[in-house]
C-alpha cells in the first residue's frame, strides 16, 4: 500500500473538490433551475436539488453495493500461482460441459494424482471415448465434504496403468466459490503438513486400485 503523505492528502482533497464541482455544475445547478418554477427561493431550490441528488445516489449506491461481489468471491486466477504439488488421492468428477456449451455431455469419474493451490493432475479410467473441451467443471470429494470449481484443461494424455489405458488430465483451477476455496485450501494445508510417505502411498494405491 502507498504511504499516505500530506501531499497525497492535498491531492485527494483537490480531486474531491473537483468531483464536487462537476456534480454541482452538471446536477445541482440544472436541478435548481428545473425546480425554479415550483420553488422561488434559491435556498429552497438548493435543498430540493440536494434532496433529489441524495435520493438518486442512495438508490444507485444501494444497487452497486448489492451487486458488487466482495473480494472473497473473486476468481481464483488472480491469486499467485503456487507450483507446489502435493501427491494425494481424492475422488473427482469431471463435467465436460462448460458455460452452457455441451449440456448433457458425460461426467467422468477419476482420482487426483496430485493437487496444488491452482490446479491438479487427475487420472481417469474412461469407460467410453471422450473428447475433452478446453474448460471443464470439477467436483472434488474431500474427506468430509465436496468442492466445485471450473477449470481449464492444460493437458490430457493417455497413460498405461496396470496394463489398462487411463487418461491423465492436468487442470488449472479458474473459478471456485469462496467457501469451497477455503475448504480446499484447508485440506491442502492439512495434507501438506502430513507425512509425505502416507500421501505417496495413497497416490500409489490410487494408481493401482483404480
Amino acid at each position, binding site marked *: 500500500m502507498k504511504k499516505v503523505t500530506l501531499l497525497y492528502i492535498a491531492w485527494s482533497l483537490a480531486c474531491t473538490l*473537483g468531483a464536487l464541482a462537476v456534480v454541482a*455544475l452538471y446536477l445541482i*445547478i440544472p436541478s435548481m433551475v428545473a425546480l425554479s418554477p415550483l420553488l422561488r427561493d434559491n435556498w429552497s431550490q438548493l435543498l430540493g436539488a440536494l434532496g433529489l441528488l441524495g435520493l438518486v445516489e442512495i438508490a444507485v449506491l444501494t444497487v452497486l453495493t448489492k451487486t458488487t461481489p466482495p473480494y472473497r468471491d473473486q476468481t481464483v486466477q488472480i491469486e499467485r500461482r503456487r507450483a507446489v504439488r502435493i501427491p494425494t488421492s481424492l475422488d473427482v468428477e469431471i463435467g465436460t460441459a462448460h458455460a452452457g456449451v455441451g449440456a448433457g455431455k458425460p461426467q467422468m469419474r477419476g482420482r487426483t494424482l496430485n493437487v496444488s493451490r491452482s490446479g491438479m493432475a487427475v487420472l481417469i479410467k474412461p469407460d467410453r471415448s471422450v473428447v475433452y473441451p478446453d474448460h471443464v467443471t470439477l467436483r472434488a470429494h474431500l474427506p468430509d465434504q465436496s468442492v466445485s470449481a471450473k477449470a481449464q484443461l492444460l493437458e490430457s494424455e493417455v497413460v498405461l496403468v496396470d496394463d489398462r489405458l487411463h487418461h491423465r488430465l492436468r487442470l488449472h483451477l479458474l473459478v471456485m466459490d469462496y467457501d469451497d476455496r477455503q475448504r480446499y485450501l484447508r485440506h491442502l494445508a492439512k495434507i501438506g503438513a502430513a507425512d509425505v510417505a502416507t500421501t505417496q502411498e495413497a497416490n500409489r494405491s490410487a494408481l493401482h486400485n483404480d
Partner: protein
Amino acid sequence: MSSFETGLMVIVTTAVYSSGWDVGTLDGQPFVAEDHVFGVRTYLTKGPEIFGWHGCVMLEQPPFSFKAARRQCHRWVMGVLQGMAMMQRTPEFRSLSKASRFRFVWGVRFRILTFALGFPTGVFGLLYLLFLAGQKLSGQASISLPFPLIAWLVLVAFMWLNATIIGAWYTLSSARQMSAVQRWTGGALVLAVAPVSGILESSVAFWTVTKWVSGNREVSSWIPTPKSKQADRVAHRESAK
C-alpha cells in the same frame, strides 16, 4: 480446440482456418479493424449461430496515454466504417432481408453517431452549464430553457454522471492493491475529469466520422496499442521522428 483473442472477441482457430484472416483492402486502403471485418464476414457467410459465449477469461490493458487512446479510438471508428462499407458491397449482405440490412447498417451507424455527436454535445453542454452557473451564482434572473427540456437535460446529466460513477465503482472495487483512500481519490479524479475526458474521447470519433463523410478515407499504418508504459514511451518516440 484452440482460440485466440482479438480486441473485439475470442476467435476459435478453426473458424479462422475456414474463413481466412487475410481480409485484404478497401479501395486500396488497408483495413484497420481486421477483427471486425472478420466478424462481419463470418456472420454473413455462416450466420449468427457461429457466435456465442466462449467462457474464457481475458485481461484487457487500457492505453497508457491520451495519444495511444486517440490512435486506438480512431482505428476503431475508421475500422468499423470500413467494415460496414465492405459489408454493403458483398452479395451475401444484399441477400439478407430488408429488416436485417436495416438493423445491421443503422445499428452500427447509430452507435458511431452517438459516440461522435458526444463531442458537440459535450462542448455545448459544458458551455451552457457554465453560463447557467454564472447566472445562478451572480443572482441574475435565469434565462432558462423550457421546463420539459431542462428536466430532460437533468435526467440525461444524472444518467451520464451515474454511468461514470458505476464504471469507476466496478473498476475500483476490484483493485485490491489500493487502500480505501486511494480508491476514493481515484473515484473522485474520474468524476472530476469526466466532462473533459468525455469531450476529448468523443472528439476523436467526431473527427474520424467527419473525415470519412468528407471522403478522406486514407488510413495511416496499423499501430497496435502499447501494452506497457515502456512500449508506450517507445511508440511516442517513434512517432515523433
